[in-house]
């Protein structure tokens, strides 16, 4: 969820050249995931076992999964879990680099371990995220909301709440009893377009925004001035950036437009949002809404 993009990591650590990475990224949509690479990434099989089964497949016309089960390297349950798993972009990228001879199976596993260790797991907020059942909490607040059944809405709500917990307040919670009074508040909106057209807004009283700005930046901010506004806008941009990365990993491409400040959410041409999160922060409620695309 919060990991840096795998390709970016490979480049920064010097595992691939920019041209090799660009070539591999350009072929992501063309390749089908291989059971061996998925088993490796899941930790079910070792690199030697994957290479052994690949070698066996050159001699016998049988599927990877069948041979791996026969050798006792995979259980039937593990194979089923691999097959039913969602497409994972970083595994596909690793697979292309292995096929191109840029990484070995061992190399892929080592890089993957380093990537996971470097994914910011030590941050206090991330620990809080791991300790909380964010998806369960988000699902419960979405019941009865128009977008409750849409996967993209649940994904946004989960990413947004995790971002608040991670970057603003590890103790943030949803307040299901909050009175729905956000329309006359000032706020920020960010539109996204591409495979979908969606907009996300946040709204709050000034003291909530000022506190959010201070926590996000660690700067001394004591009023809703230009720096506070820039900080709140940047937080929205950051949360939406993580959402677009998640969407991209699942095959939905979205481009973000620059976020905009509005004096009053009521001035926006929106009806009831698909999802509305009342997030309880130390100074009050931060409202976050996810809306179908709205025209300018």
């Amino acid at each position, binding site marked *: 969820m919060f990991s840096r993009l795998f390709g970016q990591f490979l*480049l920064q650590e010097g595992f691939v050249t920019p041209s090799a990475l*660009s070539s591999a990224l350009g072929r992501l949509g063309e390749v089908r995931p291989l059971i061996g690479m998925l088993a490796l990434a899941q930790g079910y099989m070792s690199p030697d076992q994957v290479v052994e089964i690949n070698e066996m497949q050159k001699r016998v016309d049988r599927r990877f999964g069948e041979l791996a089960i026969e050798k006792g390297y995979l259980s039937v349950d593990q194979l089923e879990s691999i097959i039913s798993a969602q497409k994972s972009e970083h595994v596909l990228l690793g697979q292309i680099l292995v096929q191109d001879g840029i990484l070995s199976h061992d190399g892929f596993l080592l890089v993957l371990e380093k990537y996971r260790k470097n994914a910011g797991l030590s941050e206090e907020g991330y620990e809080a995220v791991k300790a909380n059942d964010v998806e369960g909490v988000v699902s419960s607040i979405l019941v009865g909301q128009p977008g409750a059944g849409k996967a993209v809405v649940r994904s946004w709500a989960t990413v947004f709440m995790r971002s608040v917990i991670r970057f603003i307040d590890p103790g943030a919670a949803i307040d299901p009893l909050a009175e729905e009074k956000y329309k006359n508040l000032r706020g920020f909106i960010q539109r996204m377009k591409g495979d979908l057209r969606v907009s996300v807004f946040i709204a709050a009283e000034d003291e909530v925004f000022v506190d959010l700005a201070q926590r996000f930046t660690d700067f001394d901010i004591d009023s809703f001035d230009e720096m506070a506004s820039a900080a709140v806008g940047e937080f929205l941009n950051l949360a939406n950036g993580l959402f677009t990365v998640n969407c991209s990993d699942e095959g939905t491409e979205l481009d973000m437009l620059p976020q905009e400040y509005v004096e009053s959410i009521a001035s926006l041409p929106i009806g009831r949002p698909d999802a509305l999160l009342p997030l309880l922060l130390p100074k009050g409620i931060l409202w976050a809404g996810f809306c179908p695309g709205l025209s300018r």
Partner: protein
Amino acid sequence: MEKKYTALLCDDSAVVRKMLRHILNESPVGTVFEAIDGNQAVEMYRLHRPDIVFMDIVMPGKTGIQALSEIRAHDPSARVVMASSTGTSKNLKAAIDSGAVDFIQKPFEREAVLKLIRRILEGEWE
């Protein structure tokens, strides 16, 4: 530490420029220029030819990728690091294909930025 390098920070957010400036205080970068959009970044680059550029992607008007292409057309040796909160494969590929030397995702991690500066400006690999 000798402060011998110059940097250009291009981001429409004042808070992001300030955060990066704080991190650069601990690097061998001594002079920092700022631009608030892609057009200004191209102008500032031509004027100052900084040693390294940090460029946002999503900005009003000219995007960071467009500004990167113009800067590289003017100076093929320009060292531009794309800095964005949206690290999708599509953006990463566009950045590489347009000549970015690296891509860093927000929020900035102090150590990661300093390591990247050492690598790009002083050729240090760890």
